[in-house]
């Protein structure tokens, strides 16, 4: 069971309190009608499935009801950071390979 640090509550809490909400940083297109079916399909359905660093969104459903982002290693389940919506991650896959 994961131990997650909620960046709003500023506390480590048990995974039970959270919902996983999938890949983070997917921005809704500003003008959906101008997109081709393929572009819209990419936005709708296609997600990364990295082995290693993944930025994902979690929801503190039994806590502050805020969404936030987590940088997690999908192999080791290590959590490198959690950060608020709108912030950029400090740890990215590119940096790790360097």
């Amino acid at each position, binding site marked *: *069971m994961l*131990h997650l640090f909620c960046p709003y509550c500023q506390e480590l809490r048990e995974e039970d309190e959270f919902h996983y909400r999938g890949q983070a940083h997917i921005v*809704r297109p500003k003008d959906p*009608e101008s997109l081709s*079916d393929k572009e819209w399909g990419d936005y709708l359905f296609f997600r990364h499935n990295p082995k290693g660093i993944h930025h994902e969104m979690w*929801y503190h459903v039994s806590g502050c009801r805020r969404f936030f982002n987590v940088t997690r290693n999908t192999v080791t389940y290590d*959590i490198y950071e959690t950060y608020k919506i*709108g912030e950029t991650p400090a740890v990215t896959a590119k940096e790790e390979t360097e």
Partner: protein
Amino acid sequence: MSQKNRLAQGGRIDRNKVLNFSFAGQTYTGYEGDTLASALLANGVDVVGRSFKYSRARGITGHGSEEPNGVIQLGSGDSTVPNVRATQQELYAGLVSNPVSGWPNVNFDLMSYLGKAGAMMPPGFYYKTFMYPQKLWMTYEHFIRKAAGLGKAPTAPDPDTYDKLNQHCDVMVVGGGPAGLSAAYAAAKTGARVIIADEQNEMGGHLLTFDQTINGSSGSLWLAEIVAELSAMSNVKVLCKTTVMGYFDHNFLVAIERRTDHLGERAVSGTRQRSHRIRAKQVILAAGAQERPLVFANNDVPGVMLASSVTTYIKRYAVVPGHKLIVSTANDSGYLAAIEWSKAGRHVVGIADSRTDSDGALVAEAKALGINVWFGHGVTEVKGGRRVYTASVAPISVQGDRVTGDIQNYDCDTVATSGGWSPVVHLSCHTGSRPVWSDDIIGFVPGKALQAQHCVGSIVGDHQLADCINNGLETGSKAAAQAGFGEGELLVAKPSVEWLAEGKAQALFLVPHKKNISRAPKQFVDLQNDVTAAGIELATREGFESIEHVKRYTAMGFGTDQGKLGNVNGMAIAARSLGKSIEETGTTIFRPSYTPSTFGALAGRDAGSLFDPERYTAMHQWHVDNGALFEDVGQWKRPWYYPKPGETMQQSLNRECLATRSSVGILDASTLGKIDIQGKDAREFLNRVYTNAWSKLAVGKCRYGLMLKEDGMIMDDGVTSCLADDHFILTTTTGGAANVLEWLELWHQTEWPELDVFMTSVTDHWSTMTISGPNARKVLAKVCNDIELDKDAFKFMDWRDGTVAGVTARVFRISFTGELSYEINVPANDGMFVWEAVIAAGEEFGITPYGTETMHVLRAEKGFIIVGQDTDGSVTPYDMDMGWCVGKNKEFSFIGKRSFDRSDTQKTDRKQYVGLKTKNSDEVLPEGAQAVWDPKQAIPMTMVGHVTSSYYSAVVGRSIALAVIKEGHSHKGETLYFPLADGRVIEAEICDYVFYDPKGERQNV
């Protein structure tokens, strides 16, 4: 005659407390402090079970969680537990136990004759033998299960209670031997919160059976003192009888504490077992090592035991499990069994040591006691059926791979073996760290730590007591420092510990036989699964090279003991057959649970009515008092229908439906999700998340809305009302309330944080009762005098503030029945009062309470959809013929809109929402029935849709159904067929989905 193997003194048992117990129907006596295994051995019980494949007699082999044979059915009736290891079950008065194998019984086993008659079961037996014909597999399996079976689960609910505890600590220590205790002690002295758990009934580990001098006096004194001190510290929790069964992500461990299993079959008071869910800052694994047996011919005959188990039974339980002992060992520690056996006054025939020599202290002590020591020898074979009666001792080569001389046979009844010590790497393995082979230690040790984890003691190959204690202290202090307590320097003095000179151990796994592996008598590797050295060799010959494949092909390590005893030997034998080193072959990995865990301990109190929270409305007791039957909707208990005495369900529904259509009915609708939305951008927010246009919804008005996912498919529906220009109340389906709130928050927080909008769930704040039917207005008028109820003043899809029965209320004129309806919302605390007032007011009109089933029928008569029943996440508003509630001209491209133009949503053969009328008007289609155009076509048929809702409608006087059918809208009037599993084929005509009052006049009166 009783307890013939019990010594007159010694052991950690209380001879004043005699306990009666039974095994396989025979009664025996033992003492408090015994395990079931030690008590059975004390009474000279040799055979405790029959083996899995060959039905050979098996006896107690070990003394702890590694025991593969002494697996018993404990207790009887509802509290019985299958697959309990007799070596771990403490004896209590009246204990009832039975073997789990053997048919008709362990002493006379029919299957063994089958085994001897040549029903050979080589590895891959199941794959090879029972594959064909496939349909006979169930027959085979039944037979195999009956023959092999490992215990029976009780069929009635467990009468005991169990608990879960969430624990937090700075340092978690697994294992209460000298290393673990020292680590816990040093960590605790820094002020860190420490939990130490051990699976045995008392702390001490190896010190319980082997006393060495510490600080000039007995090691048991040191043990007693350190346990007493730890137990007295407020920052330390000492958990005996507690197995850490799993080590999970982020230093989360689960430990199962057996609180009353040593006292009786049932917990007399309190909980029987408790699971501790521990989140630790630092974890210290001091789980120790388990002795490895040597593999030789017929090594499964009762009387063959682990050397350390023999020592343990003598020292700890004062039981000598035989009269004439031969030891076969590849290291010094095996000598201890012979020394203690001899000191107990029984005869040691000799010690066969595979090594050429050893200058260890124990070897010297054995020699001094006059025990024969045969260096360069091993026990290659024993003979016996229900007990060993002779052992063959032969000189073997220095490499331990062949017999080099003449074999001597010696009479004996017990053979104790030691092939070395395997560190208990299981928990470290749970974290995903692969164990690493060490030639030095001759065993797998924990791999690189992946979490905040430390290992100390014999788990890393330190067998010297001095090393265990000193390294334990240092590790404890280091772990505490890493958890933020102390600087890492030791706050306690290191004791002076007697050093035990030790000769170098030899890596020996399989003792060679005169014949080669495939011709020699069976050399067992995994006793519980009857896996032999020959079987492993055969698997490698058949091409299985990966140790994981060898494991699965032979079933090695598949038993309840998970290969604790045999796996390392099996891997070594596989490696040798493959011509590789053990390091190259590697190990299989261990997964939780370390030993079998009971479901009770894992479930805790989350069973029965506490399995999931139950939610009741404020009027729940009225429903109960008035005979309602209930339906689970999410966590809510909703009235399903209110049967009168003697009524069938259909008769109740017909009565409830007709009463509502002809006069007035009342529904408790409190469970509908209600979300209060406020903020100056609330209207814009609604525009974005709903298909409908909200810009012009005036204060006092309500509107039905559809919510889509971004793929254009219907997700939820409900009525939203405008309370003020910046204040709305939105209703959701009962089951969807929490998801909808999360969905709205998701869009607000992640995409449109600039919108000024706030959302709060108010579902529980309000009690909601819907009165519906032509007399609804008359009923409401009797309890409400401050809202003008005239049809033109309070129109359909309006809402009003006022009072009902004197209570502040919001009244919504909305309808899910197609009748004149009012939805009365009052603060939940007043719900019951107002409900009773409305019921009283409606009495003269025969007001009839109805439940969810009648609600479903009434709405189906009108063709109103239920999201999640008539929709399934793959239908658009257009599929459901609800294009009328899509605001096509809204400025913002609302969620899901763009997907209407995708090729998939545009295709012409999508399933569409229609009604169905069966040809036989009394026949009700089953929901889920699949539709075909031609019932005579070959199977598999081309299915064109399915029934989503289906009822008998009293007011229409026939069965009605709703369905989604490919291109259904353009096939009205045509006939579809529904072939059912029972062979019937129901014929139905596609029609409009509105069956009653198609013009919608009844709700507008």
